[in-house]
């Protein structure tokens, strides 16, 4: 699942979006998004990516900057190059040493997120 790179949309580095984004396919964000992201699959915030938004997804990998709350059905990974300010909520959260993170972490299934909960964490 984590290596399903075949169909990944890339939101390029010069793209800027303000508003609401919904998607059902893996997406890598290298640009800037302000607003909210509602996602059914995996979201990768690339090293050049900048997200000022609340993010909901199945899985979130952060290599770039995120300001806002994130909640994932499966997992959130904050890598070394990431700068995150916000609260994380997922059954599994990992933060790599070296990452810049300010916020709270809640490790449980995200009841407050999207519908169709898989009942993970029970």
């Amino acid at each position, binding site marked *: 699942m984590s290596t399903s790179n075949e*169909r990944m*949309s*890339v*939101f*390029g*580095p*010069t*793209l*800027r*979006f*303000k*508003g*609401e*984004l*919904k*998607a*059902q*396919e893996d*997406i890598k964000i290298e*640009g800037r998004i302000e*607003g909210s992201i509602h996602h059914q699959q995996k979201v990768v915030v690339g090293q050049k990516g900048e997200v000022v938004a609340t993010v909901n997804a199945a899985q979130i990998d952060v290599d770039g900057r995120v300001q806002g709350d994130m909640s994932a059905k499966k997992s959130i990974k904050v890598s070394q190059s990431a700068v995150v300010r916000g609260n994380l909520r997922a059954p599994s959260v990992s933060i790599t040493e070296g990452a810049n993170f300010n916020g709270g972490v809640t490790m449980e299934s995200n009841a407050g997120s999207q519908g169709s909960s898989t009942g993970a964490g029970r």
Partner: protein
Amino acid sequence: MSKNFTENKAAPPPAPAKEVASGTCVLGPTLHFKGELYGEEDLEFQGQLEGSIEHTRSLSIGKEGGVTGNIKAKFVIVEGRVDGDIYASESVQIRQSAKVKGNIFAPRVGIADGANFSGSIDMNHKGAAATTRPATVQVTLSDPAAERLLTKAAG
């Protein structure tokens, strides 16, 4: 009068007709955007967008793409659905599979046979053409020659 001609700074080098496809960013069919999208790289849009797109390079709305709102870019290629106005500083191409409802403002417009288009086309729109129009001579009132004529007429 010669002053006007010297004002044409060297025309920008003709843009390569086909910009590198490898750098094109593709936004997939399940993406739904609601809001404003800005970009400075070639973009192929297969998703759905409600709102506006402002782009400085080439933008193509793919077969599965749909846009409800206005589009501004340098080159626009439409293969999908657009409900809204399209402004391009260079050209707009409406492909066969396209469905477009709205007005087009661009110096060059192509509509393929089989395309579904309803709206009007303006090839002389200032906003669209201003950056690319080659050497249109403008006489401004601050031009010394014009001013001399005016003051002479007034005097």
